[in-house]
């Protein structure tokens, strides 16, 4: 429609051939990307006719640093347009928005760079322009306070932004990731969470090993197995996925087999179709049935892949240690399993996740224990990781118990973070997403809705950062008159990232019959323990240029 000829992904080297006049670079303002663009532009054939014009669009904002960088490389002048596309929040699903700013947590807590918070506030202003002013703002944490302040300031400075849209959201809850450092460290046990833990979901897509997806034909003898990873999109548009994504993995198998029976029964019906009308009806349903069948086949394969891993001894041992820590067992001494993993040189990220988990569950490790872990890690993985360890300490993930007091048991008991009787098949509590551990962040959201934070003042004081409440006045005409039985809508904004398991837990709360609150989730980035720790690690390879 806009006569866009082709879309290319950014990579170094010559630009692909295309008979077009305009080339637009659509980029995040990052210096590495600027280098690639420079390379592209410099290799452009000057002699070709017609000359191509270059334009650059920064998402979400123009960056002075990037433009200056381009200038130093001598290519800034090649761009006829330099613009920005203020895309702050990207919709991922019907109830999920993400800024996809992977370094937000690191920037806020390690580099005291709050630009991402500024963007979050801007995104929230845009959201309010679309869906009405949010009358109530709650928050917990340093960053949450900042964002709320910025929103209030932006509103004050531009009184014209007062709009007349009936508010969709009743409440905004801003939560700092560092209020709940524990949750992302634990292994997620929902279906979607496990896919993310094991294969990593990138922008709703996942790449899977192809073996299980080979078309099964007789006599094929597995000659030409596909070698490309299988790429699948995962979102709620797929009926089956929407149903199973947020379930505990242990409950997925039975759903899949039930579905299989229904589908084969449906296909069987063709034998009963006698009249032309019946056959016609059957045929009209075919596309839908076939889609359902292929979706079922895909998810059965994925579930098999995951099961191979979840039934492995190491997964079980790892999970056992995690659960011991979260329920408060033996968090104050050197753990044998962690020691063994270091000796066997398991991936460093796995070690760091466990050590950090232990530290968080003990409100910091004893100095002796911390020193021991540090020494083992540095000797086995290299001294340069002292930088990573230092980052983790700065972020509060790893620390020594200074006060000599372990607050975690109090927090655990008050917020009921550990539930011994978990029902994974038909859950009655959010703790099903981690098979026992109820994510702290979601507990805070749950308790805010009912009975309110006043009941947990003590615990809130133990968690880092201030907690607060703000109100934004609405014109009288827009104030909601709540009808009986109507649900409140709360927007929960996770500053510093959110996991799929936490999303699952919030969706579970939305669906509770007597919940009374529905949740929409926004975040700076979808994370899991591995990607999160990775974002905090020092990049140790020297830059490629």
């Amino acid at each position, binding site marked *: 429609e*806009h006569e866009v000829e082709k879309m290319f992904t950014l990579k170094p080297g010559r630009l692909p051939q295309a008979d077009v006049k*305009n080339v637009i670079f659509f980029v995040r303002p990052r*210096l590495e990307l600027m280098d690639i663009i420079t390379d592209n532009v410099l290799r452009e054939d000057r002699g070709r006719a017609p000359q191509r014009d270059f334009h650059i*669009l920064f998402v979400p*904002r*123009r960056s*002075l*640093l990037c*433009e*200056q*960088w381009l*200038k130093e490389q001598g290519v800034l002048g090649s761009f*006829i*347009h*330099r*613009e*920005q*596309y203020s*895309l702050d929040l990207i*919709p991922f*699903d*019907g109830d999920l928005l993400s800024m996809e700013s992977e370094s937000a947590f690191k*920037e806020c807590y390690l*580099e*005291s*760079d709050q*630009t991402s*918070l*500024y963007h979050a506030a*801007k995104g929230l*202003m*845009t959201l309010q*322009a*679309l869906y009405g002013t949010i009358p109530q703002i709650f928050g917990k944490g340093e960053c949450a306070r900042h964002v709320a302040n*910025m929103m209030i300031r932006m509103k004050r*400075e*531009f009184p014209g*932004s007062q709009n007349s849209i009936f508010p*969709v959201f009743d409440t905004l809850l801003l939560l700092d990731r560092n209020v709940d450092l524990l949750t992302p460290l634990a292994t997620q046990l929902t279906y979607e969470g496990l896919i993310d833990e094991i294969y990593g979901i990138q922008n709703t897509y996942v790449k899977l090993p192809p073996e299980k997806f080979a078309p099964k034909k007789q006599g094929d003898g597995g000659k030409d197995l596909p070698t490309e990873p299988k790429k699948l999109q995962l979102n709620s*548009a797929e009926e089956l996925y929407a149903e199973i994504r947020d379930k505990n993995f242990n409950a997925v198998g039975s759903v899949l087999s039930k579905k299989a029976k229904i589908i084969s029964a449906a296909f069987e019906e063709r034998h009963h179709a006698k009249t032309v009308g019946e056959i016609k009806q059957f045929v009209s349903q075919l596309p839908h049935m076939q889609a359902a069948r292929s979706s079922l086949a895909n998810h059965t394969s994925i579930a098999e892949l995951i099961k191979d891993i979840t039934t492995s001894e190491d997964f079980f041992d790892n999970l056992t240690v995690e659960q011991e820590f979260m329920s408060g067992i033996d968090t104050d001494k050197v753990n044998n399993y962690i020691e063994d993993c270091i*000796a066997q*040189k398991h991936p460093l990220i796995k070690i760091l996740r466990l050590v950090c988990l232990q530290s968080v569950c003990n409100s910091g490790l004893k100095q002796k224990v911390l020193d021991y872990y540090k020494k*083992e890690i*540095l*000797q*086995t993985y*290299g*001294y*340069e990781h*002292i*930088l990573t360890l*230092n980052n983790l300490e700065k972020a509060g993930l790893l620390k020594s118990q200074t006060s000599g007091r372990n607050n975690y048991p109090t927090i655990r008991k008050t917020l009921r973070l550990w539930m011994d009787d978990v029902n994974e098949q038909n859950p009655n509590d959010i703790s099903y997403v981690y098979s026992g551990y109820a994510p702290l962040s979601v507990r805070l959201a749950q308790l805010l809705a009912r009975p309110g934070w006043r009941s947990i003042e003590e615990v809130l004081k133990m968690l880092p950062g201030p907690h607060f409440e703000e109100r934004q006045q609405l014109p009288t005409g827009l104030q909601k008159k709540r009808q009986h*039985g109507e*649900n409140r*809508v709360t927007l929960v904004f996770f500053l510093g990232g959110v996991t799929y398991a936490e999303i699952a837990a919030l969706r579970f709360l939305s669906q509770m*019959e007597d919940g009374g609150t529905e949740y929409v989730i926004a975040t700076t980035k979808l994370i899991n323990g591995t990607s999160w720790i990775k974002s905090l690690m*020092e990049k*140790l390879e*020297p*830059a490629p240029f």
Partner: protein
Amino acid sequence: MSRARADEEEYWHSSKFRAFTFDDEDDELSQLKESKRAVNSLRDIVDDDDDDLEKVSWSGEPVGSISWSIKETASSSTSSLESRDSGLPKGSSSYTALPKQASSYSLSSLFKGRNKLPSFQSLSDALSDTGVKNYAPELRRPRAEYKDYSSDWSPKDTVRRMQRGKVCSLERFRSLQDKLVLLDEAVAGNDGNVITAVLIFLKRTLRKEILFRELEVRQVALCHLIHFLKETGEQKLLLDLFSLCLSFLSLQLSQYREHLNIQDVEKRKEFLKGCIGLPFSAEDASHIQDHYTLLERQIIIEASDRQLERAGQSEIFRKYPRKASILNMPLVTTLFYSCFYHYTEAEGTFSSPTNLKKTFKIPDKQYVLTALAARAKLRAWNDIDALFTTKNWLGYTKKKAPIGFHRVVEILQRNNAPVQVLQEYVRLVEDVESRLNLATKYKCHDVVIDTYRDLKDRIQLAAYRCKVERGSAEEEKIDSILNNMVRNTA
């Protein structure tokens, strides 16, 4: 599902709010329009006078803006969306006109800019060098333009404008006092882009000693500057900054980090040596010291081993050529390497495992594990035997393993140790249960049989008889034990 829920559903799916689905291009378009509408209604936040005719004039206005001059085509997201919507050709034509300074509006503004800012130093000299003389026609001064170039904005307003992506002159802030107020405003605004912009301006206009001194009390800004220098690779300035600021900040690690950018090992070693003297915490200091010592060692070992390997005299290097250099490897890897190639060397040499163990205070456990893995790989079973043998003062020998013999067995098994070797260590596993498990798993028949014999478990022994080969020595052994047991009990 309640009625409200259904409504909710309908709300998400209704076409009006399609912005939240990823269906197809059409939707993305409507999504764009949606956000455009949103941005329009946000006009005041994003930009205040976008559609005015005057806009063109000031966007052609480069004068007085230094670093900001590169933003001369600045326009808000609104206009970027518009140009997207209306197709590019139109947009580009209106913009290509700019560099030529064809518009009379821009001439006027250039003129005016000159007057108001007599002492500008411009980065964008190309635009401001010629053609701008005093005779520019005095046109009607657009209101907005007037506002734009009034030079008496407070630092606060300047920061606000910069946040909105507008062209701003920072040159007016000439006194140190003004500059610092500006910086503080930028920091208060939380927008990294603006903070960095101000810092670039300060970096250019202030002596670095003064700048660094002022940043001492402005941690946030300092972090931004460090990050900026890191990103742009200005190593020298960065190190200057570190050396000046070390006294009051915990920047030691940031300086230490710089060693990663040094490719040459000798230089890297020297750099690390320099780091040792920095005021680290006691804990960190010992790690850094170790890092230096390790690299120093590795350089020595690497030089001599490379020579050995080339000469082809040493059997071990001929049989097992090295896969990679040992430089920059972790300590445990280095220990493995030295257990592999230099196991028998005397403690005095740098490359001997015992020397490494002593120098770096490697715990017993770690040492034994590594040595075991290395020697097992070489199938040097005698060395392994010696590793676990301790003599007491009477001269008796005893087997001891700080890691537990079940781990020893695991590692040996992974290295395909023969059954004879394996069973010797299975026998040493203390816990009877796990000894039986391991022995059964790895078919160490002797151990199983002996264990059952010691337990006087006839039934299990008889059952195990079926698992050994017919007519083998093991079968005979079981039979004789069973017979003996009968005789004894009878």
